[in-house]
C-alpha cells in the first residue's frame, strides 16, 4: 500500500461529508420559486421552509435514536450469543447456526419488517425489534468467527499455564477476537443506518419518512434531501466505526492486517 498521510486518511471522510452537507443545504435553500416552496411545504403539511428544516432535523434525530438503541441491543445480544455458540462443540448446533446465518442473510429486510407488523401490529417497539433482529447476525457471526480464529496452539499454551476455561475466554480468546468482532459491529452499524430508512414503512419514522414523502409527492428536492442525508449519515458512522476498529484493537495485534 502506498502511504497516504495519516491525517488525510483520517479526516478526509468528515471533510467530504461536511462539504456535501453544505452543498445540499445551499441547493435546497435555492429552491426559492414559489412553486417549489409550496411543494415542499405541501408535502409536509407545514407552512414554511423553516418548518421543513426542523422536519428534517427531527427525522435525523429519530433516525439516530433508531440506530443507537438498536445498536446497543445488537451488542448486548449478539456478542454473548456468539460466545455461547462457540462454547458448544455439538455438530447439530453448528449446522443449525449455519442454517440461521444463511437464511438470515437471504431474508429481505423489508419482508421481515412487514411480517413483524403483520404479527405484532404497529407497536412502537417493532421497528427496534426488526432492526436488532437484522443487524445482530453480523455481530454474532463475527464473534463466533473471531473466537474460532484464535490459534488453538495459543489456547493450549494458555491452558498449560493454568488459565481456567473462563480465563482463557476473557484473557485470550475475546481480546484476540476484538478486531474481527469490531469489524462485525461496523458492518452492523452501516446496516442499521440503511435499514432504518425502511422503518418508515412500519411507522418507525426516521429519514425514510422524508425519502418516502418525496417519492409519493414526486418532489425530487425532498427525496434528495432525505436520501443524501441518510447516505452521509451512513458514511459518517462507517468512518467513526472505522476509527474505533483502528484504535480499540489490542496494540500487539495492530499492523498484522492492513
Amino acid at each position, binding site marked *: 500500500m502506498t502511504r497516504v498521510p495519516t491525517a488525510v486518511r483520517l479526516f478526509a471522510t468528515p471533510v467530504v461529508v461536511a462539504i456535501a452537507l453544505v452543498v445540499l443545504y445551499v441547493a435546497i435553500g435555492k429552491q426559492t420559486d414559489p412553486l417549489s416552496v409550496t411543494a415542499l411545504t405541501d408535502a409536509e403539511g407545514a407552512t414554511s421552509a423553516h418548518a421543513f428544516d426542523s422536519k428534517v432535523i427531527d427525522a435525523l434525530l429519530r433516525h439516530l435514536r433508531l440506530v443507537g438503541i438498536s445498536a446497543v441491543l445488537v451488542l448486548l445480544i449478539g456478542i454473548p450469543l456468539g460466545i455461547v455458540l462457540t462454547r458448544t462443540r455439538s455438530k447439530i448446533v453448528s449446522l443449525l447456526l449455519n442454517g440461521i446465518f444463511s437464511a438470515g442473510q437471504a431474508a429481505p429486510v423489508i419482508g421481515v419488517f412487514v411480517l413483524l407488523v403483520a404479527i405484532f401490529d404497529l407497536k412502537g417497539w417493532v421497528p427496534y425489534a426488526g432492526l436488532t433482529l437484522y443487524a445482530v447476525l453480523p455481530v454474532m457471526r463475527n464473534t463466533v468467527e473471531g473466537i474460532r480464529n484464535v490459534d488453538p496452539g495459543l489456547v*493450549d499454551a494458555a491452558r498449560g499455564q493454568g488459565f481456567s476455561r473462563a480465563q482463557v475466554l476473557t484473557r485470550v480468546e475475546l481480546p*484476540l477476537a476484538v478486531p474481527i468482532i469490531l469489524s462485525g459491529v461496523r458492518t452492523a452499524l452501516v446496516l442499521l443506518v440503511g435499514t432504518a430508512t425502511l422503518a418508515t414503512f412500519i411507522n418507525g419514522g426516521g429519514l425514510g419518512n422524508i425519502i418516502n414523502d418525496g417519492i409519493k409527492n414526486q418532489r425530487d428536492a425532498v427525496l434528495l434531501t432525505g436520501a443524501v442525508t441518510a447516505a452521509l449519515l451512513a458514511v459518517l458512522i462507517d468512518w467513526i466505526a472505522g476509527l474505533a476498529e483502528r484504535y480499540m484493537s489490542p496494540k500487539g495485534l495492530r499492523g*498484522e492486517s492492513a
Partner: protein
Amino acid sequence: MPDTSTAVPSSDRSGATQTLREAMSTGNAVEIDLQSVTKRYPGSPNPAVEDFSLTIPAGQIVVFVGPSGCGKTTTMRMINRLVRPTGGRILIGGEDAAEMKPDDLRRHIGYVVQQAGLLPHLTVRQNIETVPRLLGWKRDRIAERSTELFELVGLDEGEFAGRFPRELSGGQQQRVGVARALAADPPILLMDEPFGALDPITRDRLQSELLKIQRRVRKTIVFVTHDIDEAIKLGDRVVVLKERSRIAQAGPPDEILAEPADRYVRAFIGGGAAVKRLHLVRVEDLELEPYPAFTQGEGYDTIIRQLQASQRDYALLLDDQRRPQRWLHTDELGDRPGQPQHVGQAVSGVVMATTTLHDAMDEMLSSGTGVVPAVDDRGAYLGVVRLDQVTAALEAIHTKPVAEQADATPVQTLAEITGEIDRREIEAEQARQAAAMSGDDA
C-alpha cells in the same frame, strides 16, 4: 549474576520425599512417577500411549525422543493433565496428579511449547507475569521476579519488557517462553519441542543457555524432541520411544550411544554415534591450554617475555573486560609496539565452558583455526581448546568397543521405521481431534 559454581547443589534443594504442594511454595524440584499410564482415544483401535512406566528423578532433565506421532507429546501432556490419562497413575512428589485441580496443577508446572505460544496482544512483561498474576502475587513480588527472569534468560528488561511478541525474533520469543514458564518458580518444567522451529545457530545457543539456566534453577524438566542430537546434548537421561509411546531404551545418553538396546534405537541414533558422543564432553571437562594473553594496558615487554617462556607463536589480546579480541603473532609484537588493536587477526569465535566438544569442534572447523578461546558466562577469557584435544577425546570414545556397534549400518533404516509410524501418527491425530471435539481435556 551468580557464578554457576555457586549454585546450590541439587542434593540440598530437592528430595523425592517432597510433595508437590510443599514444592509449590519453595520451587524445589520434585520427582515424577508415571505408573502404567495409558491413553486411549475413542474410535482408535490402538492406544496412543500404552502402559508407560517411568520415574523422572527430581532436578534432572529427562528427554523423550522419538519420531513424530510416537506419542511422546501425549505422554508429556498427561503430566499437566492437558490430556487426561485413561489408565494408570501419575504421582508428582508422591501425590496423585488426578486428585489435584487441573488449573491449579498447571499453574505449578511450567509449560513451554514450540513457537513459544506467547499471547500476541500482551507485552513481553505481561506475558512473563501471567502465572504470578493468576496466582495472585503482590505487585512488588511480581516486579522483582520479572527482573530476575529477564536476567535469567538473557534479555534486557529495559529494552524488551514493553515490546509485543511479534516485534521479537523466534529465539527471543522462546527466551520469553522459558521466562514465562519459570515465572512462578514451578518445581517442574515441561518443554514440548521448544527449539524445533529455530534456525540451527539460535537453537544451539538456546540449548546451551537452557543447560546454564538449569544449573541455577535445578528443576525437574521433561523435554520432548524428535532430534536425537538435542536429546543427547540436553538430557541427563534420554528415553527413546517407539510407537504407542513404548520405551525402546531409557538411560544416560552415553549409555544409549554406546549400547543401543536394539535395531530400532541404533537406527534412530543414525550414523556417527561416536561423534555424537562428543556432545557428552564439555569444554570445562578438558584441561584448558593457558595461552599467553594480555590486555591493552599491559606492557609489551611482559607479554613478549611470557610468549618466549611459553614457547608459543601467538598471544591473545583481551579487552578491558578480558574478552578475547585478536590473535597476535610474535613477529607482529616485536616489530610494531604501536597499536595492537590494528594488527593480528580478529578472534572469529569463542566457546563457553559449558559448550560441548561437538560444538567446539564445529567452531574450530568453521573458523579454520584449530584453536578456539574458551570464555566464562561474562565472556572473559579462560584458556584455549585445541583440535587435538578434541580428537583425543574422540579416540578415547572409539576405544570402547561397544561404540562401533552403534556405527554399524542399521538393518532397518530410520525412514522405514518412521514411515510406519507416520501412518500411525495420522490415525492418532484423527483420534486426538475426535477426542478434542468431545471435550476430552478436562
